[in-house]
């Protein structure tokens, strides 16, 4: 799977932009604040329905305009079709695949998956546990409809149960009122826990391997799952019962996947508190590279890799290592202020120079 054509309309600083892409490596170069990242953001938006820089879609609209539109023509093994995502102040969001409207932007429907590497990812390590849970839910599990259903069911059950606890206002709830929700929270929660455990178990070795290569074998990254609930619904119910008192006092559910932690450690010490800036950056790259690998082996489709200005933080040897590990995949699009490094990483990249809302092709014609 790769993106062949991208059209932006009133998206960020672009009035109208058309770009052709090929499989393999594409480099977007140019000075700061010229719009390189906006192109990656657009591809990520049309693939996942999310932006890595904002939660408000109106931020994506060029100032003074009412809406924006991104159109991507993708190629899935020779079959080509257009994905179109737009946002309008009054009409909200619209998404279509091959002109057929879809309610949700999702790789399981569109076939387009993306893994984005961005400076903001550091928050994955430095930020609170909710960032790491979101990473699991949105990035690692993209393309898993089964997980999405399990999580939605759990979240709905959690909302019911929290409301019940809150409405009790601190007074005791009889077992006849609490039991049905305990049992269902445990069943749906155990299903989510099992899926998370599986995915983390298959992610961890890959992440450790990348970290080891990036640091010349010096550091072992441990990615561990610390579930707040349990894989076993019987055990889960007992956890809830043990916390019943405190739950009533606080009016909220205190055990379950909504309190899970994805622990990231170097040599047994938490990266968040003990890692240097450099170590943290490496670990994020390692995690993301592991996600790309996981998706590659679990989806019927290779994800597009989007690297937003992250290589500049690595020395040449590490840049080279990372590019080799990410593989020649199907498609990798990179933004960088300089382009010097790319020659050793890939022989023949497609290069665009981005300047003030325009992009000019400076190397290679697209043959793909």
């Amino acid at each position, binding site marked *: 799977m790769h993106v062949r054509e991208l059209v932006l309309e009133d998206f960020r600083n672009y009035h109208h932009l058309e770009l052709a892409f090929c499989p393999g490596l594409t480099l977007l170069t140019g000075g700061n604040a010229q719009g390189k990242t906006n192109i990656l953001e657009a591809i990520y938006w049309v693939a996942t329905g999310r932006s890595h820089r904002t939660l408000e879609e109106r931020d994506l609209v060029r100032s003074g305009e009412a809406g924006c539109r991104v159109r991507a023509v993708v190629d899935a093994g020779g079959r080509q079709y257009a994905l179109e995502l737009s946002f309008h102040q009054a009409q909200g969001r619209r998404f279509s695949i091959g002109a057929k409207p879809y309610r949700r932007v999702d790789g399981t429907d569109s076939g387009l998956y993306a893994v984005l590497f961005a400076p903001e990812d550091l928050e994955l390590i430095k930020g609170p546990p909710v960032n790491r849970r979101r990473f699991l839910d949105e990035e690692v599990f993209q393309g898993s409809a*089964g997980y999405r*259903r*399990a999580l939605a*069911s759990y979240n*709905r*059950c959690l*909302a*019911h*149960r929290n*409301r*019940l606890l809150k*409405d009790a206002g601190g007074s005791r709830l009889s077992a*006849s*009122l609490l*039991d*049905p*929700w305990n*049992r*269902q929270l445990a069943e*749906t929660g155990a*299903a989510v826990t099992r899926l998370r455990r599986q995915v983390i178990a298959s992610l961890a070795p890959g992440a450790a391997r990348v970290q080891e290569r990036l640091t010349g074998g010096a550091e072992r990254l441990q990615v561990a799952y610390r579930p707040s609930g349990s894989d076993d619904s019987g055990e889960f119910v007992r956890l809830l019962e043990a916390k019943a008192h405190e739950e009533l006092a606080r009016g909220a559910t205190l055990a379950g996947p909504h309190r899970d932690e994805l622990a990231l450690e170097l040599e047994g010490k938490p990266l968040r508190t003990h890692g240097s800036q450099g170590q943290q950056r490496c670990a994020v790259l390692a995690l993301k590279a592991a996600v790309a690998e996981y998706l590659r082996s679990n989806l019927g489709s290779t994800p597009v890799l989007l690297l937003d200005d992250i290589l500049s933080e690595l020395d040449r040897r590490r840049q080279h290592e990372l590019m080799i590990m990410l593989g020649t995949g199907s498609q990798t699009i990179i933004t960088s202020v300089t382009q010097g490094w790319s020659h050793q990483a890939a022989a023949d990249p497609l290069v665009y120079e981005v300047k003030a809302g325009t992009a000019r092709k400076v190397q290679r014609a697209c043959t793909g």
Partner: protein
Amino acid sequence: MIYPGPVARLIEELGRLPGVGPKTAQRLAFHILATDIHEVQRLAEALLAAKAQTVNCSVCHNITDVDPCRLCRNPERDRQLVCVVESPKDVAALERSHEYRGLYHVLHGAWSPIAGVGPEQLRIKELVDRLKAGGIVEVILATNPDLEGEATAMYLSRLLRTLGVKVTRIAHGLPVGGELDYAADDTIARALQGRREM
């Protein structure tokens, strides 16, 4: 206002109906305007009659035009069996199957803390009274197989067991005529849990 008052009002009222957005409401309104006055009259009368001439059955709480309802009066029905459902639509669905010959009890909803609906807002007390009056041997819980329906069933099974009746839950599993590899994971999991010996 784009439309004259009466038309705007019709669009607004139609737009209150479930599943009808502004566009559909507008389309329906113009259809009604283009329709013969007698047909419109029939529709208006049907709306009023449906509301004015139906009540909830004082026994099973299904909607009916006679009280007790025809199902509750029918001497052919098995009076030892009561099937508990969320809504009158569920009664209709079960009747279409021609498989069930017992009586019904309509709860008018399911337990949903988010929606602010608790067990006390459902027709549960009425069900307990029916059971206490005697004659009923088995209660079949046929609430929906979703979180709310399941919570309602769990609550009821605990409550009704103390009354000395047999409490059963309808099975959930694979749809008849469906294919295994198209079924959702949780459906398959349920179907496995509910397997039976043969």
